[in-house]
């Protein structure tokens, strides 16, 4: 099955790239643009596991590599 892991910066960690994108949207004439958030999305095929086990494994992947707990949080969800 396929599992999605969405990694986000923690509140309070400045994301200068998102801020630049927000300003660029404004420069293109999109008025009313408030905060812009970027997230990183991973989709991982995990073979031979039921959904619960695959999600557990995905959480372990995020804990150990895909997210840095100092600056990021993550959520996992099944795809499809």
């Amino acid at each position, binding site marked *: 099955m396929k599992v999605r892991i969405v990694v986000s910066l923690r509140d309070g*960690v*400045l*994301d*200068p*790239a998102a801020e*630049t994108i927000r300003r660029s949207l404004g420069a293109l004439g999109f008025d009313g643009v408030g905060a812009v958030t970027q997230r990183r999305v991973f989709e991982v095929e995990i073979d031979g596991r039921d959904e619960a086990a695959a999600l557990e494994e995905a959480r372990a992947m995020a804990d*150990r*590599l*895909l997210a*840095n707990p*100092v*600056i990021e949080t993550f959520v996992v969800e099944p795809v499809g």
Partner: protein
Amino acid sequence: MRAAVVTFPGSNCDRDLAVAFAKATGRIPVRVWHAETELPPVDVVGIPGGFSYGDYLRSGAIAARSPILRAVAAFAAKGGRVLGICNGFQVLTEAGLLPGALVRNAGQRFVSRWVELRVENDATGFTAGWRAGDRIRLPVAHHDGNYVADETTLAHLEATGAVAFRYADNPNGSARAIAGVCNDARNVLGLMPHPERAIGAELGGSDGAVLFRSLVAALA
């Protein structure tokens, strides 16, 4: 003093760091490839600057999970001295050997220039050749040098003297203008500026040589 320098795919300051160690110690450092699982018998391990693994995922993230880093972590746990410079600092934070993290510069731009630093703690084996409060000049060259940590961690760093160097004119938005930090045991140091690029007048400055001489003195 015997030194080792680790090289990852994408390291580009490993040679400079080896030269700095050689100049300070009179001995050629052992070069260690990232895929190795054991360190040679040395007193200090240098994790150099560069773009290990192309900075994929996060700067230093993949290198921090490489085989040699398990050996470096075990070496540090036994009190071995570990010096991480630039990408090496990022690797050490990603590996959990130093607190905090290094994210994109607040100004979004890659910053490559000489900066002035204040030596904050002269009571470490890396910094004993200075006096606290000394102003020194070292080059920086990084895109992800913005030091972040939660308030509890920052308060702990300040209260315990773990901040080794602070920018005089914060070039990257780092919390508390932190340029380099030690672990609690003071045997691991990470810093974004490049002392190995400032070891002689022909390089534009020699303040960095003090760090390597301090290590030699501490390990004598």
